[in-house]
């Protein structure tokens, strides 16, 4: 016996002995010519094997230790059931035991020579097309080969259409695949998703299943092992059987949601009338997954709770979803306070309970754990005694600040949950929307505190300096440089500090949340919004330092333009286009204006000639290796979502309502799991690629700015290789270079360099670097070590512009002197004895 751990050795030996006894029986039957007996015995062997190879018996070690038994069985069955015509698939399939010889015949019939369990699909297609009932049945009944779930159901459909779908076929199909019900369909999917179209054979299969389910679960004890999974039985008797065994979870899951007709549903209600409250509640619980539990509400004494139940079921989401508070409260009113309480006991709902303030402590705990739906529910809690809208607003802002620490993609869903919570809070506060709530709260932060504090004979206040709140202390009109100890010791000093901290947070929110977005998108403010912003201290400090464009097109600082219409924050692209960029940069320096975010000095990216030529793809940052973890954080902080190596794009960011920037990267596994090589950038609209020239220049510039930041901050190659704009395609560049080198053996042919070496003629592709050995071979040569930094600090005017160019040139030079190659891994590929 091979590789059997000691603990399974005895079990494997016993099972083998049992199987050998069966082999002996088979030999006796074969000698007597008892073919029917042999067929039955095959089933017994299969069952013995299934239990014998199970994890709890032999840990799965039997299968690897029965080659001799299999061979013996093959001999018996091949002898007793010879195949007369190997070209007749029906005859090959019609076997009690899958001998190796028959499997090989099947494999060659379906053109999969060498496969131990060949796919049956080609034969199935043939049988369905020819409506060959015998072959169709054999395809399901045979122990040979393997067919996909959908194929099996199509075979069964065909048999059903031919009136030949019998119990034997159905039972074998379910024995092979307990989850076959998934492809039979016809009932709602788990989670309440819509019903799929049932398969043609569904009625017959379900009749069979219902009968089987009833039989297997009849008293005394139900036998679940034989019952196929997935399918839901039909009929009140099943629901009642589940109701009779209130502690049988299996029964509850499988039979509780049984499919009922309207009459059966009424009958169930009648049945429950003279039952205990306990049983009625249990019936309700059983029917929840079936979706018709509401018909039981009257019998539970909750006739008015139907709308509330519907609402509870509709809001059962793990994600944060906006709820209509008024609708929740209306449904609760209709159910009555007591009714609502009892319904939530039957069917708990975090949001509904939160809207009523019944689960405050639990919700606060969930917020601490950053649960998304918990955060959303937090916004719905009614204000507790003494709590103000502003308190809750500030608490939510604190929750929001935790987002960036939660991982690259989670931070986006966290931010979305906070946005939902703010919307909920706006509903609690009776405000029309979250925007309005934000304005109101921010304004209140600024105005809430008194102007100045008098502490002893000092005047203490908070003044803004470039939107940064600083503490000022003065005595008798003279400003002090530091805060005196008497002031620090005063309890009111803490209030001053808190006020300062709130103003600082407000300035931070305004800078990173609103002003940055406004400038990065060239966004617009209505006169109303502008007015409200300027009422805030941070707004008063920041807005005049920005460059704006008014309705008439005038560009200037806030005091130089008309404010009676909407005003647009000037993106540097606008300034560049109007040839005003140099002017404004100089002007800001001259006026000593410090902008709250980069505007005139914001890095601006324009289409390069290479990008124009490439039409819809930018390779400006392609080929840059970056640290995946750092890059992932930078990207997600800028609104990018990162994806896995097998996704179509590895990072995407929505840039306008229609447009998404999509970056391809080379990475292993997931973004952040290791090194990432930045690849090509495209812009997508409705799934198709948009030419770069049609991308709004502001959006283009901002996306390139993100990527430039990523390669310069997260880049892992030394600065000598940094940011070479790929002005010419690599192939053209290499071709010109190779011409320059004057290598006698090398010629350039289109996008390939042809090297006439001493061992062979090679064709090196100048874009990919792949090497073909003429006439029809392939030579794999790779950089000996990745991230080699040998060239880091050489100050020479190198002609190769990036690592890939260097790799390809090195390949050409290597092959140019191929007689000097000593690497056995290369020589072996060239069939040269090393």
């Amino acid at each position: 016996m091979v590789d059997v751990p000691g603990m399974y050795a005895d079990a494997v030996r016993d099972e083998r002995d049992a199987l050998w006894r069966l082999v002996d029986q088979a030999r006796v039957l074969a000698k007597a010519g008892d073919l029917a007996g042999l067929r039955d015995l095959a089933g017994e062997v299969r069952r013995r094997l299934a239990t014998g190879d199970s994890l709890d018996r032999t840990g799965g070690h039997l299968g690897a230790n029965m080659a001799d038994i299999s061979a013996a069985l093959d001999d018996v069955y091949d002898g007793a059931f010879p195949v007369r015509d190997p070209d007749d698939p029906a005859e090959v399939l019609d076997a009690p035991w899958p001998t190796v010889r028959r499997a090989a015949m099947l494999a060659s019939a379906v053109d999969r020579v060498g496969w131990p369990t060949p796919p049956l699909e080609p034969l199935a297609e043939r049988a369905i097309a020819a409506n060959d009932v015998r072959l169709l049945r054999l395809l399901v009944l045979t122990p040979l080969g393997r067919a996909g779930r959908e194929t099996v159901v199509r075979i069964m459909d065909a048999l059903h259409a031919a009136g030949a779908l019998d119990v034997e076929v159905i039972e074998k199909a379910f024995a092979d695949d307990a989850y076959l019900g998934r492809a039979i369909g016809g009932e709602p999917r788990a989670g309440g998703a819509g019903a799929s179209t049932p398969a043609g054979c569904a009625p017959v299969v379900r009749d069979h299943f219902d009968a089987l389910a009833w039989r297997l679960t009849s008293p005394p004890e139900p036998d679940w092992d034989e019952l196929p999974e997935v399918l839901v039985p039909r009929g009140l008797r099943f629901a009642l059987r589940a109701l009779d065994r209130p502690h049988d979870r299996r029964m509850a899951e499988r039979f509780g949601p049984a499919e009922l007709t309207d009459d059966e549903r009424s009958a169930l209600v009648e049945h429950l009338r003279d039952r205990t409250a306990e049983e009625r509640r249990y019936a309700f619980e059983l029917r929840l997954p079936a979706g018709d539990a509401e018909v039981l509400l009257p019998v539970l004494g909750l006739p008015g709770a139907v709308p509330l139940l519907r609402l509870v079921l509709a809001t059962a989401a793990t994600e944060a979803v906006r709820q209509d508070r008024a609708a929740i409260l209306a449904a609760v009113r209709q159910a009555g306070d007591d009714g609502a309480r009892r319904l939530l006991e039957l069917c708990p709902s975090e949001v509904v309970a939160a809207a009523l303030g019944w689960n405050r402590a639990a919700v606060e705990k969930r917020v601490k754990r950053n649960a998304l739906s918990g955060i959303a529910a937090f916004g719905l809690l009614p204000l507790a005694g003494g709590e103000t809208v502003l308190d809750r607003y500030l608490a939510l802002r604190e929750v929001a600040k935790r987002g960036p620490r939660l991982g690259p993609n989670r931070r986006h869903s966290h931010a979305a949950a906070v946005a939902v919570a703010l919307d909920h809070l706006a509903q609690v506060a009776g405000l029309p929307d979250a925007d309005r709530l934000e304005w109101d709260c921010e304004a209140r932060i600024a105005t809430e505190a008194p102007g100045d504090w008098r502490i002893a004979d000092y005047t203490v206040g908070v003044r803004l300096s470039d939107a940064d709140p600083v503490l000022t202390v003065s005595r008798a009109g003279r400003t002090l440089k530091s805060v005196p100890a008497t002031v620090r010791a005063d309890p009111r000093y803490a209030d001053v500090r808190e006020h300062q901290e709130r103003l600082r947070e407000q300035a931070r929110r305004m800078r990173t949340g609103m002003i940055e977005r406004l400038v990065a998108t060239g966004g617009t403010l209505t006169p109303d919004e502008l007015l409200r912003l300027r009422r805030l201290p941070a707004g008063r400090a920041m807005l005049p330092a920005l460059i704006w464009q008014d309705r008439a097109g005038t560009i200037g600082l806030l005091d130089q333009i008309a404010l009676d219409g909407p005003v647009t924050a000037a993106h540097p692209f606008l300034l560049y286009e109007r040839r005003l960029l140099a002017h404004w940069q100089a002007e800001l320096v001259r006026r000593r204006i410090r902008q709250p975010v980069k505007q005139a000095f914001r890095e601006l990216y324009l289409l390069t000639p290479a990008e124009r030529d490439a039409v819809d793809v930018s390779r400006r940052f392609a080929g840059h290796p970056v640290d995946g973890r750092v890059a992932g954080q930078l990207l997600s902080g800028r609104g990018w979502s990162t994806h896995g190596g097998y996704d179509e794009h590895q990072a995407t960011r929505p840039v306008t309502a229609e447009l998404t920037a999509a970056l391809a990267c080379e990475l292993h596994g997931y973004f952040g799991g290791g090194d990432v090589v930045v690849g090509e950038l495209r812009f997508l609209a409705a799934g198709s690629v948009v030419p770069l020239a049609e991308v709004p220049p502001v959006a283009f510039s901002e996306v390139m700015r993100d990527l430039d930041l990523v390669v310069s901050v997260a880049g892992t190659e030394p600065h000598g290789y940094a940011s070479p704009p790929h002005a010419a395609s690599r192939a053209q560049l290499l071709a010109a270079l190779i011409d320059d080198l004057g290598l006698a053996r090398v010629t350039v042919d289109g996008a390939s360099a042809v090297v006439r070496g001493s061992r062979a003629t090679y064709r090196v592709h100048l874009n990919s670097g792949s090497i073909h050995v003429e006439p029809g071979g392939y030579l794999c040569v790779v950089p000996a070590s990745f991230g080699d930094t040998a060239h880091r600090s050489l100050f020479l005017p190198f002609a190769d512009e990036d690592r890939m160019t260097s790799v390809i040139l090195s390949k050409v030079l290597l092959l140019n002197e191929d007689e000097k190659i000593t690497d056995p891994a290369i020589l072996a590929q060239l069939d040269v004895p090393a």
Partner: protein
Amino acid sequence: MLRVKVRETAPGSARHGGHDVLVELAEERTTTRELIRRAVEEQVRLLGDDAARRRDMRDRRYLLAAEIRAQAATGAIRLPAAPPAPPDVADAVARAHQAFERNAFVVFAGGRQLDRLDEEIVLRPGETVVFLRLTALAGG
């Protein structure tokens, strides 16, 4: 006095506007060692010029219209990052010589690969010199 053109193909490269580099040699007859030394010196000088230009922009803190036009052609307009400290020329030359000897790069001149540092070469006007980084390769 001879000016040799060194092919430098990265247009818009951050190092300097993407023109071929001209290296001045005292006479046509020279050695590989001397050619590398002059190329390094010229490169360090260009870096110095570039650094001076960058420092200039940074001290001024804004870009001139001409600078914006020049940068627009490269696809990105921005105040340059602080230039790195200038390398020591003698040290840079020594490192380049060592790198040549361990085949970190190769030099082609007049259609011929230069093998040794002390190899005598004769350069003619109009001939291009090419420096190429090598990447160690292995069968895969």
